[in-house]
C-alpha cells in the first residue's frame, strides 16, 4: 500500500460532492468534494511505485477538466485507463443530477 498526494492549480469550483466506484480488484473509488482551497488529490493505492503514472493520468485529466475539488481515491490495482474512466464518471455524476 502506498499513499500519494498531489496538488493542482485549477479554477472550476464544483458545487456538490460525488462518489463513484468500488475498491474491487483492478478497480477504485473516487470521491470529489467541493473546496475553496487548492485542488488536492489524496490517493491510497494497493500498488506501490506508480507515482509518476498517477501524476500523468491526473495531469491529463485536469488539463482537460480544470475542476477545483478535494479528491480522494482508494485504489486496488486499477490500470490508468480505469482510473481515467472513473474520474470521468465522477465528472458526469456532477453534471448529471440536479
Amino acid at each position, binding site marked *: *500500500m502506498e499513499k500519494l498526494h498531489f496538488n493542482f492549480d485549477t479554477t472550476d469550483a464544483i458545487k456538490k*460532492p460525488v*462518489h463513484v466506484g*468500488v*475498491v*474491487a*480488484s483492478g*478497480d477504485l*473509488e473516487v*470521491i470529489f*468534494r467541493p473546496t475553496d482551497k487548492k485542488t488536492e488529490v489524496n490517493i*491510497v*493505492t*494497493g500498488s506501490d511505485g506508480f507515482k509518476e503514472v498517477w501524476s500523468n493520468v491526473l495531469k491529463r485529466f485536469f488539463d482537460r477538466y480544470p475542476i477545483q475539488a478535494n479528491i*480522494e481515491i*482508494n*485504489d*486496488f490495482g486499477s490500470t490508468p485507463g480505469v482510473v481515467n474512466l472513473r474520474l470521468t464518471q465522477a465528472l458526469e455524476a456532477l453534471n448529471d443530477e440536479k
Partner: protein
Amino acid sequence: MMKNSFVELHARQRALSLLDENSARELVGPLDDMISPHLEPQNIVPESDDGIVLMKGTIEGKNVLIVSIEGKFQGGGIGEVSGAKIVAALEKALEDNQASKTIYPILVLDTGGVRLQEANYGLLSISEIQNVVIALKKYVPVIGLVPGRVGSFGGMSITASILSYLIATNKARIALNGPEVIEQEAGVREFDSSDKNLIWNTLGTKQRLATGLVDEVVDDTVDDVKASLVNEIETRKDAHRTENVDFYLSLLDKLDLSKKLDIETYDDLFKQVETVKHEIPEAETSFKEGTKSRGRVWFEAMTGIKNATSSVSTVLHAQKDGKEYVAIVPDAENDFPRVRDGEVGLQEGFAVASVINKVVAEDKEKDVKRPIILIVDVPSQAYGYQEELIGIHVALGSSAAAYAKARQAGHPVIDFIPGDAVSGGFLAHGLQSNRMIALDDDSITVQAMSKASAARITQRTIPELEEATKHVPAMAYDIDNYEKLGALYKLVKGIGSWETTDENVATINSIIDEAISGLNGDTTLHFRYETPIAKASGRKATLKVRQLVAEQW
C-alpha cells in the same frame, strides 16, 4: 428482451435496483467518511463505505431497510465499522417495528463472513447481527438474499440460517467453512478445494434448496429477484430453519459414520428421516475419565460432577445452585472425527440448542429466569465435508439462536472463559452472552481462524501475520489484547486455566453472581461497547457509527 443481471451489480446498485424509484436514501454513505481504522495500519486499502450499503426506501410502497454487502471489497468481510453499520441500522429498524412502524429488513449477503484483518470485531459484530435478527423476527420477516458471486460463508452463513426466508440465485454458495479452509485444516482427502464440481454440487444453492438450507432459487435478473422479495413481504413466510433441532438430531442418529457421506446418500437420508424427540439429560458422574480439557475440568469443578458423562459425550450440562452450566468438551473417541479436539460440530450445535430451548421452556412462566453459565473452551468449529453437506452453519445457528432467545426472554447468559474462544465455535457457544468473564492465561486463544488458515486466506506468511497481529488488537490471538476491545466484563488475574481449586471456583462463582446482579434487567449485548475500555479506545469507531446511524435514520 435484455435481462438485467442482479449478480453483476455492485452493492449500491443492487439496493437501488430493488427500491421504488426516488424512494432510496442512503445512511452513513461514502461521503460520511466512516472508513475502517484497522485496514491502513495493516497496509490494506480501505473503502469509504467499508463495504456496507445501508439504504432506506420502499418496495411497492412498503418501507424497507436494505443492507447490501459489497462482495468485491475484501470479499464482503465484516469488520468493526461494517459490522456496526449493520447492527445499528437493524436496531433502528427494530425500534421502528416495536413502535408499530413496520419496516422490512432485507439483507443482501455477499460475504466471506468475518473480515480476517479485523477478526475479533467481526465475530463480535456478527453475533450482534444475529441477536437483533432474532429480536426483529417477532415483528417482521427478516429476508435474506444471496445473489453470489461470493455467496454467504463463515459467521454470516450462521446469520443466514437464522433469517426468516432465504432467496438465492444459482450463482451462489452457502457454507460455514470454505473448501480451502477445510483442506488447510483437515487435509485434501477431506475436501479437495480444486474440485470445482464437488464444491458447487455440495455448497451450491441447487443442493441447498433440496435440503432446506435455502427457500427459493431464482433466475439472476433484477425483475425475478424483486418479484420474489415482493412476494415474501406479502406472504411473510418463515422457514424456522434453526428450530428443527429434533429433526437434525434424529438425522445424525441415522448417519453411517463408517464411510464418507456422499450427496446422493445424504439426500435420501434427508427425505427418509423420522423426527424423534430428543432430550439431552444432565451430565452424570461416571467411572471413566473424559478427555481432559480446560472446559471439562471447570465444568466438573463448578458442578461437582466427577468424570461427567452425557448421552451426547461432547455436550455437558447440569443445574447447580439454581444455575444451568453448559460446556462443550472434547471426546477423543467421538464417532464424529472432526470434533475430537473439542470443536463445535453438528451434534454439538443441535444438542446445545436442545438443552437451552428446554431451559427456556421450563422457565417460561417464571418471573425470575434461571441464569445460564457457558463454560467456554472451543478451539474452533468442526472442519469437515459431511459437516458442510448437512449444514453445520444451521447447527451453530441453532445454538446461537437458542442462547439469544434465552437472553431476550430474561435469562442471564454469562460466559466463563477458561479456554479457547475461537471462530464459529465461539459464535455458537459464547458470543450471545450478556457478560464475558475470562481468565488471564497465556494459553487462551481468541480468534476467528487458526494462524495457518488466516495466513493462507489473507495471502500472507505466518510470520507476516504474526507481525501484523502484534500491533492490531483487532487481530490478536491472546486474551490480553482481546481485553483492549472492551468486550470483557472481567479479566480475572492470578487463576490459571487448569487451576480449579475450591478457592478459585468460589472466586469465579462470586464474580458470576456479581455479574448477574449487575445486569438490572439488561437483555441486550450493548455492554460490550459501553465499558470504559470500549469507550476510550476499543469501540470508538463502533460508537461513532451508531451515533451517525441514529442521526440519519
